[in-house]
């Protein structure tokens, strides 16, 4: 087989113009809130190198995370896997099965040792020697440890690999844990969400391909650019919250007028994610816009925080001094609650990371 091409040579060969390629890089840079010059940096970086080798391991998962990635509009999955990365092992998409698939993983590990990006979706069962999930007869735990050794960095895609997710929910029958509970000696980025927003997965991949490192992370190892604000802070229904206008059922006048879903259990105030700004599926909607409260699916332990329809115990307001206390029947309000919420998050993060 020939020596692999650089991406630039490959793009020329495949007839993709620098202009359309730059357009793609600009979109990525803007998504990641990088300065315009970053598009050129990205374009140059991408053209110099071979496509970034990516090994994707799927453990206790539902395939929703990779399905989500296929719904990415900019870049598209086609652009990613044919122009940006070399997806060398990914169960849902790869042609090879069985030993041919496993040798694809081994070949990629050998060829790009120390350089490949490892993506993980799904939690890892640790109880009883890991018998609750195996691939090719190998426990998920062993496969993770083995494959992580030669990885430049690891991206945990989805709430299951980031925090344990639904398998970790009480009573956690299989002893499911997150990647960071096992791997301590590699940079690990968490991209939570059940599933994560497609553009967020794509954006962080493009960043790694460009700069060869993970973007800036917060205290829960999440890329800051996508997880800095709560959904509530950026929600288009926020003015109704501030005015004390709440939907009481899923199809009353308030619901049809787009009033706040707080009383129907919306977890937007305690959920850090970009759904309200980037939105979903090419921007056509996001859960609150359609009319269901946020489940809080990118938060640690969101499955165990009570009913999805139970209103949050305290109205939370960072910057809404004039809150509709009267409407809420005099429930205590204040900025403290949001601070508490952030602290609560940090606590959970610590606990998760044990």
């Amino acid at each position, binding site marked *: 087989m020939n020596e692999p091409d650089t991406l630039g040579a490959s793009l020329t060969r495949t007839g993709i113009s620098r202009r359309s390629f730059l357009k793609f890089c600009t979109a990525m840079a803007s998504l990641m809130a990088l300065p315009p010059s970053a598009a050129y940096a990205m374009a140059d970086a991408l053209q110099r190198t071979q496509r970034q080798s990516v090994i994707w391991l799927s453990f206790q998962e539902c395939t929703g995370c990779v399905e989500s990635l296929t719904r990415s509009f900019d870049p598209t999955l086609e652009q990613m896997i*044919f122009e940006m990365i070399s997806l060398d092992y990914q169960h849902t998409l790869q042609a090879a099965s069985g030993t041919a698939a496993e040798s694809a993983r081994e070949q990629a590990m050998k060829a790009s040792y120390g350089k490949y990006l490892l993506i993980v979706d799904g939690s890892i069962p640790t109880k009883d020697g890991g018998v609750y999930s195996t691939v090719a007869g*190998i426990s998920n735990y062993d496969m993770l440890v083995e494959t992580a050794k030669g990885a430049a960095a690891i991206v945990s895609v989805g709430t299951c690999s980031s925090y344990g997710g639904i398998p970790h929910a009480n009573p956690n029958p299989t002893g499911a844990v997150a990647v960071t509970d096992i791997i301590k000696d590699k940079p690990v980025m968490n991209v939570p969400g059940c599933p994560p927003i497609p553009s967020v997965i794509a954006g962080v991949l493009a960043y790694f391909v460009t700069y060869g490192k993970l973007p800036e992370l917060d205290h829960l190892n999440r890329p800051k650019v996508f997880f800095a604000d709560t959904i509530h802070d950026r929600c288009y229904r926020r003015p109704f919250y501030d005015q004390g206008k709440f939907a009481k059922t899923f199809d009353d006048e308030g619901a049809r007028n787009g009033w706040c879903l707080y009383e129907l259990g919306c977890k937007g105030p305690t959920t850090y994610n970009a759904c309200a700004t980037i939105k979903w599926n090419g921007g056509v909607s996001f859960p609150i816009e*359609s009319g269901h409260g946020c489940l809080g699916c990118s938060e640690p332990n969101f499955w165990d925080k009570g009913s999805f329809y139970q209103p949050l115990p305290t109205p939370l307001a960072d910057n809404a001094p004039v809150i509709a206390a009267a409407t809420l029947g005099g429930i205590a309000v204040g900025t403290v609650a949001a601070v508490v919420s952030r602290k609560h998050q940090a606590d959970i993060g610590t606990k998760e990371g044990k």
Partner: protein
Amino acid sequence: MNAPTNRVIVDPITRIEGHLRIEAETDAAGMITRASSAGTMVRGIEIILRGRDPRDAWAFAQRICGVCTLVHGIASVRAVEDALKYEIPANAQLIRNLMIAAQFVHDHVMHFYHLHALDWVDVVSALKADPKATSELAQSISGYAKSSPGYFSDVQKKLKGFVEGGQLGIFANGYWGHPAYKLPPEANLMAVAHYLDALAWQRNVAQLHAIFGGKNPHPNFVVGGVPCAISIHPGSNEPGASSGATSLNIVGLQKVQDIIHQMRDFVDQVYVPDTLAIAGFYKDWFKQGEGVGNFMTYGDFPEKGMADPASFLIPSGVILNRDLSTIHPVDLNAEDQIQEYVAHSWYDYKDGKNKGLHPYAGETELNYTGPKPPYAQLDVDQSYSWIKSPRWKGHAVEVGPLARVLMLYAKGHEQTKELVGMALKKLDLPVTALYSTLGRTAARTLESKVIVDAMQTWYDNLIANIKSGDVRTFNEKMWDPSQWPATAKGVGHMEAPRGGLAHWIVIKDGKIDNYQAVVPSTWNAGPRDAQGQEGPYEAALKGHQLHDPKQPIEILRTVHSFDPCIACAIHVTDPEGEELIKVKIR
């Protein structure tokens, strides 16, 4: 014990959902004499569901699978509604039908192009195609606009650059050049082009779920209706009535209409013609891969609500031994009809491993007795899978597209009869050709046509309701758990893309007391039962002649024809609580 045989092990089976392992024993000539299907991952979602608010269950259940992302959400809200005798408004029923139908068409197209196609399409051979001849081929089978020589030449150039660049990515180590690939280079190139087109198409049509459910994968649902308020206020001038406040506004509804058109066009112009064209080169695959010969459907797409099965587009029933003249009725509540067995699964029952249990009385005790990982081989005479073996009155039955098409055909559904007749005529095959690997694949395509055509009526009815002033999407009557009976039980069923799906729920004092899902891939991928009866995958693989045991493409073809969804297939209920779980490792 059997005489020593060669064993061909395929693990991981890729291009599916979940973790599946096949161990096939072959004779000296390479013919499969016994196949064993093993699910190798378990999470225990039903254990996790116990004690929770039944209104929350859909969100947990939905995470059983992110590919058929809607089906467990629907089955779950239907189970709770059945238990509480909770009616939903007409608009909610129409919106659910549209969402289920969109899931079917999206899922089936993706299965054909992205999961199944590479079993029949040699990507590398496409490099040898003449773009002009490819264009002629494409135009001879369809009026699809993207069919110029330039279009195929661009795709080929892209593919050439990719292959010659030396980094094959997802195409690395495929069985390219295997003599089982029969398509001429032009047909391969056309299929590769449509692989890429289908990726773009699926991204667009998934937006239908996002408009109604806020996102896809994992759109939102709600017990008692749908969680998407209609922000159109016909004839209203009242202050505060702001049209466009939710995604279900004029623009959103127009988008839904556009997507229905896009779905229909792709099915008509690409999916159906491609299926028939590719199948024409593989007629020997219409003679093998049948499976158990028994078929079951639960029925779906109600016109008048779940309580009126006569109004379902897809009828329910059981067909035994290919006898289309007798449709046996299915009763999901009857204790002696649907039962699950664990004789070869890593679970124990209190009264022994050979008993069958109805899902309401279902019990599960995880009891892993397989080899300690890493292992090379399972002991398939003992327990070998996390999947149970469900049976209908003791029969192993196949569920899914083939079962549905046979049921529609047997019940005289006109469009189905026409479609089946058209396909068989084009391929010059008898009706019995349906009982096969490619019969199953073709049935998936044909039912997509039936379902996509039905979408327009549901959409028109929804629009008509809104125009007449009916914007109800939710029934709040039973929302408050204080109005519920102290105990209730119910079953929610549906047709999922991979077959009949049902969730059984027992509610006690407003909480989930027991929850059990028996899903399509449990029926199809389950191991042998106490009587030694094989599951449908296992039966279908028997008799396959492997050209090269090191490249068992024949196994992939038949297993993929079922469209496995293994995370779905494995489920755990434990009525006694966590402490029952014990594991023996030897």
